[in-house]
């Protein structure tokens, strides 16, 4: 197989990873908006996919640059390393989906890259600052979502508690969900698609077709956003169980607050080049909104599984990537 063919093959796998990410996370974007019947499932899916796609024009490429420059040293990057990292992330995602563990594709990707880099050149090629940044935001991002979700919900409850017309209030919040769902999809598109951009750019570096520090080519940006948008479009159709209902029962008001809190967290992370989990962020926000009622309104079993996913994802995907890289070396 020619090197160019290998390069395009691995780029296709990266885009597939992005597509599955959109497919998997569609529920987060459309759950509440469908549950409250603001939009039909078809309309909601198209709405989320549209905002996933246009995110490229709004929130830059800081996360993609982080993936290319702050995880593995440039001289260690090769197509085999990125391939092993991707396989580590994909395998881990499939395994945890089968186990019902809400793991993060972002952390799996970072873990995969780190594992493959260690297998190729040893621990010294891993950039510890970058790993620390990712690691601390595994905890910070849901906590920011939690704090913002709780505060927003309390503020909104203060504002609306005097309004006696429940119907009018509900109608207003149902309309506002259009904006909050769009904002969340925008944040999701920006943060998650950029990870794939970073991976594709690393592949180009590995194939000597680009240099670290250069701008991400437009075709890479557009293809990553197209893949995640299409994934959301196809994923949303089949999702019946919603993230909102799994954690705590959300009304339109709660939906707006949770999505707005999560979107704000994702905007902050994307602007600062921090790869975070969109699933964990919205989970934190939903827990925050749910805990304005009482803590028992939150289904802690799901939240506990998220904590397990925090602990296991990076080492787990790194281990799979190490094995994959050794196998690639053995057969190449």
């Amino acid at each position, binding site marked *: 197989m020619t090197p160019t063919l290998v390069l395009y093959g691995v780029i296709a796998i990266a885009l597939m990873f992005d597509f599955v990410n959109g497919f998997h996370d569609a529920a987060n974007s459309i759950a509440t908006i469908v549950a409250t019947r603001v939009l039909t499932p078809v309309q909601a899916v198209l709405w989320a996919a549209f905002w996933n796609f246009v995110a490229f024009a709004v929130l830059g490429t800081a996360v993609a640059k982080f993936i290319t420059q702050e995880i593995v040293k440039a001289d260690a990057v090769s197509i085999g390393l990125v391939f092993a990292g991707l396989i580590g992330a994909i395998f881990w995602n499939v395994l945890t989906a089968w186990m019902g563990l809400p793991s993060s594709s972002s952390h799996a990707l970072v873990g995969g890259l780190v594992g493959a880099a260690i297998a190729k050149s040893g621990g010294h090629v891993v950039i510890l600052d970058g790993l*620390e*940044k990712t690691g*601390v935001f595994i905890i910070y991002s849901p*906590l*920011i979502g939690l*704090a913002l979700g709780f505060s927003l919900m309390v503020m909104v409850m203060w504002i609306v508690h005097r309004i006696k017309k429940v119907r009018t209030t509900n109608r207003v919040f149902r309309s506002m969900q259009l904006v909050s769902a769009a904002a969340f999809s925008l944040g999701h598109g920006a943060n998650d698609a950029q990870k794939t951009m970073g991976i594709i750019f690393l592949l180009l570096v590995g194939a000597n077709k680009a240099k670290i520090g250069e701008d991400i080519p437009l075709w890479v940006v557009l293809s990553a956003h197209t893949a995640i948008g299409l994934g959301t479009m196809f994923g949303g159709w089949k999702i019946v169980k919603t993230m909102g209902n799994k954690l705590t029962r959300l009304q339109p008001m709660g939906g707006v607050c949770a999505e707005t809190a999560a979107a704000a967290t994702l905007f902050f992370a994307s602007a600062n080049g921090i790869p975070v989990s969109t699933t964990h962020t919205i989970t934190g926000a939903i827990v925050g909104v749910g805990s304005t009622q*009482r803590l028992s309104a939150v289904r802690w079993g799901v939240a506990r599984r998220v904590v397990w996913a925090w602990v296991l994802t990076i080492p787990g995907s790194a281990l799979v990537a190490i094995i994959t890289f050794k196998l690639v070396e053995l057969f190449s």
Partner: protein
Amino acid sequence: MKNFDRRAIFFWLSALASFALIPVTPEKLMAVGVILGCFLLLLGGASWLDDRTRNRRT
């Protein structure tokens, strides 16, 4: 202790986690841990006061 507001404890534990992460947070982003920790401490305090007020009323 049995009747202590569990939500306040939850917020305070979250604040503790935020503060604990500050030493390993990159310098540029350290303010995130500090602001988040202080904010969660305040939320815990507000939740505790809210719980006390409710219990007094009933």
